[in-house]
């Protein structure tokens, strides 16, 4: 009865959540989840209990806190992480209980995080894909509910059984944290960060499910598998002693909320003895040389900000895709904002102090090379994201073409104009940062290399644009193959022929990383290449313009032309 009243009240707030809970929270399902959750935590609890030493049997153990006995040979030493077990007068061993509880806390955190992350992402993609395919979501779209309300209902409702399972682990988890000596505010902040990270990944999953909604089961497996490898890699990296690399990868790595466990472990009563999440090299991470990750509380707040911004962008795109399934994920105007934001994000982590023993220009150049390469990949993705359907392009060329602003702000216009602006934002910012930060002998040549790279991105995108203007259903795949070939094939060709960028710079100028060859090239050859690239872009753009003109002509004119 109470449950129904509670459900009814939820339904008034969010009907979609009501529908999801109504379909999922059956007594049978709840019972099964409760058994699975209690059983799993029981397994982890017992497996850690078994690791405890037994009085009279164990002489050394990770959880013991005794001193070395008098007869211990001072020349020998214990293996790593082991301590001597000494019993008190009553025969009980002195144990490091805070360490044991902290270990339990960390174990449950990692397992719980992965189960909920992967399970939730899988269920959301599968559920939304199924609804799209069946057509049931269409009626929901026609209702006066906002897209955000539906997304929130789905995100909170579809993985509801997973939430129930987590809620049942929470008491033991919370208790383990407190017994481990982790400060209460930090535990609560950790819960906040983990919740925000679910919001981030789940809203991303909801958006992903709306993009090209075919074969929902396959899509769900692909996304879950990809995310698993990504998060496992990132978590393994966090466990390393030198998890701080001083470039963009630091920023990418920070999307793993398990990073917070480093602060929680350090704040626990057993910080020194912890075997996992015990390195504090992430404290060296800086953003525009401001050390923001020295303190757990500040790091937590940054996480909340980061995930909050991510959720905002995902929901913005979800809103567009929800109502216009054939529309683009972002508007052209939105893309400029996102690009600026991501460029600032990437630059912030790139301009950290160079690391390691060889703190010279090489680190800088590598860091900027990494950033500009990531930027190029982002820009190619943006080309796909901003490209309207062929139908929209056709409609635009026929009915709306005219104003020049439309190339940069129009909803149905080709993506290429907006991509050029985005390339200018990324390239301009990186080239400027290079010019300010990198040492004088390299700054000009490298900055020019960045400009050439930007032009290469535009060149490949214009080619892709021409392919997208061809009639047919699989032009997106064709454009992707073409761009990928344009990026990879030059390297294979130059590699096979052994073309050294230091000796023969010119061919490298036409790859996606021309900056590796600019250092040894003359300024004249660089400028000539830039002119050549701009000329090629102009010619291809003219070809694109002609194709658009052709698309816009009436059937009659086309028929007459063909007949003629």
């Amino acid at each position, binding site marked *: 009865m109470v449950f129904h009243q509670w459900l009814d009240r939820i339904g008034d707030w969010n009907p979609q959540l009501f529908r999801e809970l109504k379909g999922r929270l059956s007594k049978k399902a709840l019972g099964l989840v409760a058994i699975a959750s209690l059983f799993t935590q029981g397994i982890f609890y017992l497996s850690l209990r078994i690791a405890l030493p037994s009085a009279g049997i164990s002489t050394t153990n990770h959880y013991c806190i005794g001193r070395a006995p008098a007869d211990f040979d001072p020349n020998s030493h214990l293996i790593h992480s082991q301590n001597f077990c000494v019993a008190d007068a009553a025969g009980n061993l002195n144990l490091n209980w805070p360490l044991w509880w902290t270990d339990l806390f960390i174990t449950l955190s990692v397992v719980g995080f992965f189960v909920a992350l992967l399970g939730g992402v899988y269920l959301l993609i599968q559920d939304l894909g199924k609804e799209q395919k069946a057509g049931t979501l*269409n009626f929901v779209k026609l209702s*006066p509910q906002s897209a955000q309300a539906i997304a929130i209902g789905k995100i909170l409702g579809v993985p509801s059984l997973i939430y129930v399972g987590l809620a049942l682990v929470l008491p033991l988890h919370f208790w383990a944290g407190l017994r481990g000596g982790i400060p209460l505010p930090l535990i609560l902040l950790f819960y906040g960060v983990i919740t925000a990270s679910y919001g981030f990944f789940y809203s991303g999953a909801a958006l992903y499910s709306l993009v090209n909604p075919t074969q929902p089961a396959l899509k769900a497996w692909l996304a879950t598998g990809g995310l698993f490898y990504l998060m496992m890699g990132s978590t393994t990296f966090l466990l390393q002693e030198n998890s701080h690399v001083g470039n963009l990868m630091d920023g990418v790595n920070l999307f793993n909320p398990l990073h917070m466990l480093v602060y929680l472990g350090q704040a626990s009563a057993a910080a020194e003895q912890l075997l996992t999440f015990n390195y504090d090299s992430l404290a060296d991470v800086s953003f525009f040389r401001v050390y923001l990750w020295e303190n757990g509380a500040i790091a937590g707040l940054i996480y909340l900000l980061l995930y909050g911004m991510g959720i905002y962008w995902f929901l913005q795109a979800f809103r567009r895709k929800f109502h216009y399934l054939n529309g683009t994920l972002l508007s052209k105007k939105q893309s400029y904002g996102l690009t600026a934001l991501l460029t600032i994000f990437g630059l912030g982590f790139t301009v950290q102090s160079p690391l390691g023993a060889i703190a010279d220009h090489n680190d800088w150049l590598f860091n900027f090379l990494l950033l500009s390469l990531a930027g190029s990949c982002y820009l190619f993705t943006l080309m796909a994201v901003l490209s309207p359907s062929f139908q929209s392009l056709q409609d635009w060329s026929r009915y709306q073409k005219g104003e020049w602003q439309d190339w940069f702000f129009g909803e149905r216009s080709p993506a290429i104009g907006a991509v050029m602006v985005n390339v200018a934002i990324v390239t301009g910012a990186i080239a400027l940062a290079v010019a300010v930060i990198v040492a004088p002998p390299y700054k000009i040549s490298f900055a020019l290399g960045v400009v050439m790279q930007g032009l290469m991105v535009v060149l490949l995108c214009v080619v892709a644009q021409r392919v997208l203007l061809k009639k047919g259903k699989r032009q997106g795949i064709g454009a992707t193959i073409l761009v990928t070939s344009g990026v990879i094939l030059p390297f294979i060709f130059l590699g096979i022929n052994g073309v050294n960028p230091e000796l023969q710079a010119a061919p490298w100028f036409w790859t996606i990383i021309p900056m590796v060859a600019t250092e040894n090239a003359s300024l004249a050859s660089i400028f000539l290449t830039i002119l050549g690239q701009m000329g090629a872009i102009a010619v291809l753009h003219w070809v694109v313009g002609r194709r658009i003109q052709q698309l816009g002509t009436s059937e009659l004119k086309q028929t007459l032309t063909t007949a003629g």
Partner: protein
Amino acid sequence: MLAAQSTSSPIIDQMAIATFNLTKQFDRQVAVSDVELQVQSGEVYGLIGPNGAGKTTLIRMLATAEEPTLGEIYIHGDRLLRDDSNPHLKQRLGYLPDDFPLYDDLNVWDYLDYFARLYNLHQPRRRRRLSEVLELVQLTHKRDDKIATLSRGMKQRLSLARTIIHEPLLLLLDEPVSGLDPIARMQFREIIKVLQEAGMTILISSHVLSDLAELCSSVGIMELGYLVESTSLEDLYQRLSRQYLVVSTLDNLDGLVGELKQQPLVRSWESCAPNRLQVEFAGTPAESTALLKDLIAAGIPVSEFYGKTEDLESIFLKLGHQQTT
């Protein structure tokens, strides 16, 4: 021109539906071309036309399920857009497409309850409204049954219940009786009449023209994406429907035909049964009475004599359209 119309003009305000230049193009195919449709409040507007004429696309655009290539749609004077910037407009719309996917895991009551909540119906009105629509679509006895167990007709009625749960001002029905047996069709017709009496504006597309003739106050004919005719049913009959007299005789038809040839107001005749003629007669009802007197006076054994108006299907065919029935 559009800009001038888009400012709230009195014509737009009075109309339940007003479209301007409404066009939808799929690839090179123009599905709906430059349609200027105007439907008054409280009307039942029938949309007819052959398959592929653009009826479904037009209705989908009116329901915000499809984005127009060009043109504007106004519902009760407000501009209709597809995003979630106009929830109050969506609150006024009810749309029943020709296919009706449902949630098989829910029962009838929970399904309607879910949609009532999506349309912001709160208690106690929600419960009352659910009972009302279930009664209207005659599914009260099925309220606790899983949707998966319902028959096609029941599912169609449940879909209609979902469409009207929020008491929309404008109801868009696309082929609502396709695939239904005659009894289910009749039940559906009765429901539409009740909704019409409740004051809803209804736009309905159907191939069953006899149904439309019974329900509609106006009709629009679509062909090749164009709205080639849009008028009241009364006007359509007046302009295009001919009056017929059906005359049967107990004797053979020769005597009857011989007598009809003498009558100046008789234009033509054709046999529609062994002893029956369909007579095109240009006179008034009083003159047709005089004709009957003449026939009897001439000794023709008249067994049947009544006036008949050409039906919607005949008019439609006469206009040069072909309708699948």
